[in-house]
């Protein structure tokens, strides 16, 4: 199939679908009509799109953890704990890394070993191996909506199984679940595979079932300048809307400077709504703010400081949802107790800040203007490269380095761009690579970084970037040179 930003026809979809459902034996249990009937019977409080819409109307921020283990009963136990003890508003099913690479045979080994050793040998819930029936079992055991969270370039079978299983949201996108998560999957391939996932959500919408879609905002989670992640989020939003997605949650990962983070969320909303209007899409838009995605302090009390700062920023920015970190972040996958603690710290902060927003100021206004201008530079070029088609333009933009994600593993990402923090901790462009921006924007970024370099008595260099990557783990936002 040739990639273009155009809604798939029924024949195109069905032809691919027939093959997708054969990728693993559990695929044969997916029946779209039966699944639609099942989804219609799910109460509203367990529908992701409905709960998000309500939160947006009320102007509140809801909290969601990440969590998933290898076995069904253990996974249910984990989710119930996060719901009852952690008071999570939304529950996730984080999918294991073998499933993300479509290595279902290795999942089977992980499942069997987990039973044998009585501890989870997988870092998530292998939903494809467990199948539709078990996904429904998980939904029946909880009282919040469920979402699959993963990092899968080809999520087609996974999407089929989780939606038929009653999970009403799927995270990911053709850029955001490829470039940060894979080495050798072409952008064209993953855009096509995610058009499939979006079209599936669109089909359910046409049958009267609301399915939420959430492109993954933070990308590599490592010093991604807001304009780069916003450009990707807007593209993925537009591609999803074309396939019929109606409930869309665009995301952003905390950088750490309050004004920049608030500006990032506000400019994301304003600019994406502008684009949806231009292209005639009617979308119910919400936002998700990810608490700090980089390295964490190992000390748990210090980690709570980072968690609460993220929660505060999400509330002050007015994000609809916040994704929660845990005090075990520095050492890997948390216990369910630690995970619940992260949600509780978050919710306490959210409750205290309920109704408060960061007031407009000269600094905030400037930052919003800057992020929008940078984002427009990228998006205009993508559209130009695609001769008016965002899907084709995206493929070409990666080839040309017009979209360039820092620290991405993918060989389809040019990797010439380098970010670093300015003196106030806001993330700026140190090297633009081939990203097309005006001279004014380039000079402004450069000026801010030179100010920092001067105050630290060193040159602007890669060592600055390395210091920034370790900084939060060591207790500061900006990485200062070692004395």
């Amino acid at each position, binding site marked *: 199939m040739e990639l273009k930003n155009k809604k798939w026809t029924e024949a195109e979809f069905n032809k691919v679908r027939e093959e997708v459902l054969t990728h693993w034996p559990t695929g044969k249990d997916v029946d779209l009509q039966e699944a639609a009937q099942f989804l219609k019977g799910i109460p509203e409080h367990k529908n992701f799109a409905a709960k998000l819409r309500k939160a947006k109307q009320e102007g509140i921020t809801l909290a969601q953890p990440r969590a998933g283990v290898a076995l069904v009963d253990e996974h249910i136990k984990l989710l119930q704990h996060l719901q009852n003890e952690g008071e999570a508003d939304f529950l996730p099913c984080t999918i*294991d*890394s*073998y499933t*993300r*690479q479509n*290595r279902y045979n*290795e999942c089977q*080994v*992980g499942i069997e*070993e987990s039973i044998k050793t009585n*501890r*989870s*040998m*997988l*870092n998530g819930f292998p939903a494809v191996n467990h199948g539709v029936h078990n996904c429904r079992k998980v939904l029946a055991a909880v009282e919040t909506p469920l979402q699959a969270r993963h*990092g899968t370039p080809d999520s087609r079978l996974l999407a089929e199984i989780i939606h038929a299983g009653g999970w009403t949201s799927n995270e990911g996108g053709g850029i955001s679940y490829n470039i*940060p*998560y*894979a*080495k*050798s999957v072409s952008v064209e391939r993953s855009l096509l595979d995610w058009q499939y996932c979006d079209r599936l959500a669109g089909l359910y919408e046409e049958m009267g079932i609301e399915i939420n879609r959430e492109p993954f905002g933070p990308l*590599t989670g*490592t010093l991604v300048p807001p304009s780069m992640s916003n450009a990707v989020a807007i593209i993925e939003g537009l591609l999803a809307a074309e396939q019929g997605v109606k409930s869309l949650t665009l995301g952003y990962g905390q950088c750490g400077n309050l004004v920049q983070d608030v500006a990032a969320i506000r400019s994301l909303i304003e600019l994406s709504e502008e684009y949806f209007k231009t292209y005639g899409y009617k979308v119910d838009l919400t936002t998700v703010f990810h608490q700090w995605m980089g390295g964490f302090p*190992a000390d748990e009390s210090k980690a709570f400081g980072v968690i609460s700062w993220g929660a505060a920023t999400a509330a002050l920015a007015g994000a609809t949802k916040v994704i929660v970190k845990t005090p*075990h972040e*520095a*050492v*890997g*996958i*948390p*216990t369910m107790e*630690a995970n619940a603690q992260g949600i509780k710290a978050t919710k306490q902060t959210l409750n205290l800040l309920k109704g408060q927003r960061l007031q407009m100021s000269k600094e905030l206004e400037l930052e919003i203007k800057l992020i929008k201008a940078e984002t427009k530079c990228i998006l205009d070029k993508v559209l130009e490269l695609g001769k008016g088609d965002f899907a084709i333009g995206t493929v070409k933009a990666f080839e040309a380095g017009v979209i360039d994600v820092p*620290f*991405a*593993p993918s060989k389809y990402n040019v990797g010439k761009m380098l970010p670093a923090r300015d003196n106030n901790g806001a993330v700026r462009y140190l090297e633009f690579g081939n990203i097309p921006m005006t001279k004014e924007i380039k000079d402004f970024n450069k000026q801010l970084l030179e100010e920092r370099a001067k105050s630290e008595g060193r040159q602007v260099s*890669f060592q600055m970037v*390395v210091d920034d*990557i370790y900084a939060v*783990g060591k207790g500061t936002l900006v990485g200062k040179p070692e004395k």
Partner: protein
Amino acid sequence: MKNNIVLGVIGADCHAVGNRILDYAFTEAGFEVINIGVLSSQEDFINAAIETNARAILVSSLYGHGEIDCRGLREKCEEAGLKDILLYAGGNLVVGKQDWESVEKRFKDMGFNRVYAPGTTPQMGIRDLKEDLKIV
């Protein structure tokens, strides 16, 4: 003799940031780094080590499946004729917060020469590698 080392992230793991930093730090320290990147199989590590006559293989794993992914690497190295090659592993090697000593022992039993806990600086690995390779 050039000090070639193979660096990579094993299994279905795509954590790329630490990999870039290790590459930078070991190169700065004078090693010739053959970086095979993320999502690398045991065979990828071994082939790269044979091709470049490497003296050490540095395996990273951040996502918790390290225990499954690293099993048998030592035996496969021996089968491939890499008899005395140094094997280092580091990162978040297992699922969850487990007692570090037992994790270290499990990996040493698998044939790894050095095993590093989360949060280890590149400098520690560089110091150990220089010691193990008798580089002054």
